[in-house]
């Protein structure tokens, strides 16, 4: 077979955080915090 299936990966336990769900939450929470900061900046210093 041309494409051997990759060996069992350690993707069930990612480094740094307890689960992938935690990583995804971190990325989305960072986005939410950035948007919140931008809204504050637009309103506090905007025209």
């Amino acid at each position, binding site marked *: 077979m*041309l494409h051997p299936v*990759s060996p069992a990966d350690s*993707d069930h336990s990612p*480094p740094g955080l307890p689960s*992938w769900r935690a990583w995804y939450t971190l990325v*989305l929470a960072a986005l939410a915090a*950035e948007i919140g900061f931008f809204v504050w900046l637009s309103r506090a*210093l905007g*025209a």
Partner: protein
Amino acid sequence: MSNFDWLVLAGTLILIVGYGTWRTRKAGASLDNYLLGGRNTRWWGVGLSIIATQASAITFLSTPGQAYADGMRFIQFYFGLPVAMVLISIVAVPIYQRLRVYTAYEYLQTRFDGRTRTLAAGLFLLQRGLSNGLSLYAPALVLSAVLGWSPAVTVCLLGTLIIAYTVSGGTRAVTITQQWQVAVIFSGMAAAGYLLVRYLPPQIGFTDALHVAGRLGKLNLVDFSFSWTDRYNFWTGMTGGLFLALSYFGTDQSQVQRYLSGQSVTQSRLGLLMNGLVKVPMQFGILLIGVLLFVFYLFQPAPLTFNRPVYEEVMRGPAAAEARQLEQQHRTLQLAQQAATTSLAAAQRAQNPVAEAAAQQRLQTTQAARAGIQRQWLALIKRTNPTADDKAIEAKGKDTDYVFISFVLKYLPRGLVGLLVAVVLSAAMSSAAGGLNSLGSTSVVDIYRPALKGRIRSEEQLVKTSRWLTVGWGVLGIGFALFAARMENLIQAVNILGSLFYGTILGIFAVAFFQKHVHGRAVFGAAVVTQVLTLLAFWLTDIAYLWYNILGCFAVMGIAEVWQRTGPPDSRSEREGEPTDYPLVEARS
């Protein structure tokens, strides 16, 4: 540029390319090594490579200029990107990594059939093959205007350098050079931003500058009102921006190849998530430089236009006398603008709302007068070019691509000018190299290898073919950039054409991932019908191109579903789920 700047520029580029080529001098024995860097890249290498491939020279030339003219609302365009990174990490990465594919389109053969794979790969090659050369042409044009370099020589030199290291070291060389190119880009932009704040008048601090920019509407970061015609609001960012990011990062081989080179699902995912964390702050930083430039030029004399060749053209033409008069008005206005800005900053610091409102009013009046001068300038360009149409006049009047690089050349110290020009060229090279690398891979893996129809070729022969195809695509890109230089409309057509394919390709992949009961015949038919409908809609309606990603994707999914339910049975259905089984090269252990 001074001799020292030339030394910094040449030294930076030669060191990066030389190091990348030397580190990968033994690459290329196998397809895995040559096309995917031995599938050995760590997460930070994957992440930096993804960032470098997306960030073209225009990112660093145009984006500050866009903020200078239009404020920071462009940031909203990137709001969908982190969401796309999460979705691709969940859905696409495990499938691509499990099947050990070389390209995203290879998966389509496993899931559907050969013709669907060829269709998607063909659309990618057509779009990327034409547009890759243009990513070198755009910065060459700007640098020719401000530095007097020949665009043709710049394109040929950069193109040859990129072909040399991409062909020699394959994906690993591209990844290693991209890591250093990103380091140069970040340090150059950070230095430029720091000095920009330092160069503001002593009485204007960083927060004063932000206050002034905010009062003049430049801190328009988030807009929750919706409009079909407005590209930059929260809703278009979260929908159109999301689908664009899904198409680009999930199905465009120039990006998929970056994370396929990851050591494992974990490393690929972390690389994508790193991009999701870094991209919005990075764009914010670049746009902030543009806003600071705007405040800087409220105090410093800005030219009537930053586009020097157009300025000289008007000054040599029949409208030269009026242009000189207009320039005088512009200078007088700048003095009034400087006085009003100083008063506004002082009133803000003193927390005197009455004085603040009065100063803001004066500043807004000068801004309105400035807009009037811009309109008169356009009229003078039209008088100088009486046969040009409105679009051409508008393009000549637009100088946002030149704002940042003009500041760099005029105000930054020796050495740093060379570094910032290296930033622009590094960005051009990193994105073009990523594109070229993916063109070579897709042509050999998805077009050449299946065309062999079972005639076995060794991996060494396939790598050799991939190298020659990469050279071919590189030469084609250079040739197309030189040819397109004479046809502005052609450049626009290529950019638009590419954006019209993304929706269809994303739709094919969405069916593959989420509609497990739909087979090859239905999705192929749906993709062809959708592509024809997309081209017709583009021709007959005014729908903004961003929406074609969403409409195209849902059209393929919907038509494929109906086709599957109502069409004749598909012989391929019996073989669904089989791994790629065509005899291509000798089996690898």
